[in-house]
């Protein structure tokens, strides 16, 4: 493994983690933009733009993009989140240049009005698809309740109203401002020819203009739920009731972030955790999990529960009792060891696949300009102590100040 880095004159960072044994090459652009960088009028633009990037440039049509990715045998896709938009392709090593060429050209899209109108229909279908599925919008509404007026409150997809009203000019302006070389990282993992990657980046991206001001909206994130309490979404045809609960946790810059993940594994992993044994193994809930979700300057502990509608309040009370018990009595040695072993194994197994490493390596560099080998991450996990987890329990009280949204047939 080697980590390599180059910065182009216009500010674009090019990085790679090369692996001698890999049989594939993953490349991706990590753009520091997402729903937190939108205004109410631009709500959903980051994600809609991610779709439009696949509709072509001035010289390459959308159909041609699809054909070229398939012809190089690429596994290519993109995703948009609150703070990131990521485009990636995994190919066999002899296709690195093809993949880089295409994905780099895509970053300067034509954003044609006709494509915009057609793709708007697809986005509206995507919004309806998720709205028809568990947890029926409870996750988005819960984040909105937790973050209140902060930009992280905004859902990634936007709403039917915001997408319908969005003009193409607003997207073009957003793209111009946010897809600047200084807010983007070109990352590669696996069997990477780094000199070729840098040469291709210079040729394809070297002419991109830097933008004077690419700083993102950074109002202070709330350290407790802006709108605590319970909200209900009524879905008469749903079979189960779905609940999402968010309480504060460490951000990705906080020293507690790894211990927070270990705590979440002890209490609420999808197997072998306290929530699993109490609620899932007993057949009382379809799902009962806790995980830690981190942003640049905020963090969340997210509890997800699904069970019979008439039992949802009782089951949430049991979950809170488990959180209170952990806060007052701490966690035991064996369950700590089990969770740490589990996390360590996940680090090693995920580290074997260049595609998984791309998100890790590219994401960390895009956010914090830091790089860690798999061995270094493993070292961090293995050095965690029960005391670290105890500190998280004390600093981020899981049983206090939370927003809860329930969705299902009960309606309270």
């Amino acid at each position: 493994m080697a980590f390599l880095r180059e910065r182009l004159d216009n500010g674009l960072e090019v990085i790679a983690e090369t692996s001698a044994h890999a049989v594939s090459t993953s490349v991706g652009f990590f753009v520091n933009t997402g729903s937190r960088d939108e205004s109410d009028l631009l709500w959903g633009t980051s994600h809609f733009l991610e779709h439009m990037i696949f509709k072509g440039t001035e010289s390459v049509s959308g159909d041609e993009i699809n054909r070229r990715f398939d012809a190089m045998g690429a596994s290519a896709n993109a995703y948009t989140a609150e703070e990131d938009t990521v485009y990636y392709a995994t190919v066999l090593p002899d296709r690195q240049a093809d993949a880089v060429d295409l994905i780099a050209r895509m970053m300067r899209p034509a954003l044609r009005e006709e494509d915009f109108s057609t793709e708007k229909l697809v986005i509206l279908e995507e919004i309806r698809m998720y709205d028809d599925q568990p947890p029926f919008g409870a996750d988005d509404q819960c984040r909105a309740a937790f973050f209140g007026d902060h930009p992280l409150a905004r859902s990634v997809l936007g709403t039917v109203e915001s997408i319908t009203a969005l003009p193409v000019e607003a997207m073009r302006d957003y793209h111009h401002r946010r897809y600047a070389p200084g807010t983007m990282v070109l990352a590669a993992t696996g069997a990477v020819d780094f000199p070729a990657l840098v040469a291709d980046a210079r040729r394809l991206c070297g002419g991109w203009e830097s933008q004077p001001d690419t700083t993102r909206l950074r109002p202070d994130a709330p350290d407790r739920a802006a709108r605590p309490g319970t909200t209900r979404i009524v879905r008469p045809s749903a079979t189960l009731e779905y609940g999402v609960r968010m309480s504060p946790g460490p951000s990705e810059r906080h020293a507690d972030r790894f211990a927070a993940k270990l705590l979440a594994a002890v209490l609420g992993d999808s197997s072998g955790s306290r929530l699993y044994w109490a609620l899932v193994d007993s057949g009382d809930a379809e799902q009962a999990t806790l995980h830690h979700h981190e942003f640049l300057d905020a963090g969340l502990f997210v509890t997800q529960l699904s069970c019979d509608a008439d039992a949802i309040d009782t089951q949430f009370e049991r979950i809170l009792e488990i959180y209170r018990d952990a806060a007052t009595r701490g966690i035991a040695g064996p369950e700590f060891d089990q969770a740490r072993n589990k996390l360590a194994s996940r680090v090693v197994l995920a580290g074997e696949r260049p595609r998984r490493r791309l998100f890790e390596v590219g994401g960390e560099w895009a956010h914090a300009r830091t790089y860690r080998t798999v061995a270094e991450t493993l070292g961090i996990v293995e050095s965690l102590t029960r005391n670290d987890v105890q500190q998280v329990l004390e600093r981020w009280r899981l049983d206090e100040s939370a927003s809860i949204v329930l969705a299902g047939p009960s309606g309270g």
Partner: protein
Amino acid sequence: MKQTLFSATLDNGITLLGEDLPDLESAAVAIHVPAGAVHDGPGRCGLATLAGELCLRGAGQRDSRRIVEDLENAGVQWAHSVSATHASFSGAMVARRLPDALPIFADIVRRPRLPPDEFDAARDMVLQGLAGTEDDPAHRTMLALRQIHFPAPWGMPAEGLAAEVERLSCADVRRFCSTHLLPAGSIIAVAGRIDWPDFVARCTRLFGDWRGDPPPPIAPGPRGPHSRHVPHDAQQTHVAIAWSQPPYRDDASHEATAALGILGGGSSSRLFTEVRERRGLCYTVSAGYQTHRDFAIAVCYAGTTAARAQETLDVILAEIERLPGTISAEELDRIKARAKSALVMQQESSAARAGSLGRQWYHLGEMRTLAEELARYDRLTVAAVEDWLAAQPPKDLSVVSLGHEALEVPRGVSA
């Protein structure tokens, strides 16, 4: 690419399969016992799934918690599932922990305690899963499609039917396990950084003295009606279409899956281009291939707003009809490139390779090397795919819609 594959057969009929991937840190093992849902029996849909669940609730010297603790302390990322044909238990781990995992899996399949005091919780867990499925419209659509297209019992949902699961007893599960959790026909596949002789020796010790006669094979029963509407109150309508294909072990399956890939696999496929890119009719549209050992199907799926569902169905049907006689060399080349790339990249995942070895053995009775698989794709020609399509054009389509209103299925499409 050089590949090191191994196989061995134990006296009791268990097949051991292995692939050495010395560049990986991990190893993955998957144990497939032919105790799948086709053996549920009439009125007991979900029995195999419930049995699989109860097997994890205590086996050998370990109780339910101890099984999970021991697996997770060894860093085993474990999973279990029950398909139509098999109960499968699998795990991926850092390679040196494989010897810790094997005895646990051996206990689960050979010495499940099937504790009566855990039975209600296990059944409730299965019922919770089924209730969750009710809220997943795409999944329900596919279940309905398989139910009307495959002959019984292959079309029945492996996860069960709630009304039938509720009637099952611990005695039913115990009877099922004693007659179906047996060595004959079982497959144990391992891949990653492995020591094959050591693996064979361990498996011989752990599984070699397992005895029992296999249950009689299940004969395919009648098929259901060929189109069905499932009423569902939501914004989107879901459409799924199936027709018969040669199974994976049939030599023609490569031609068949190539044609299907051109229709709806990948973002340059005809369905993605015509339904999503040109018309913006839906977010999800695809065509895929699902195979049992003796029969297989092509499946097209799309989910879209109710008002545009009929147009979506019409466009999909038109693309299916247009397929024979129109395949281009570029389209076939893209299918080959995607398939070959996916095959090579499997080498980076011990779990993917262990899964693939087991599937190949079950369907083909052999393991194909990567070179053989790649050569099969290289040999595919437009003429061969067209010849196959001319002889076997898509026909006798089964159509399922799930949503507010039934869609109109043109006469002559559905048998």
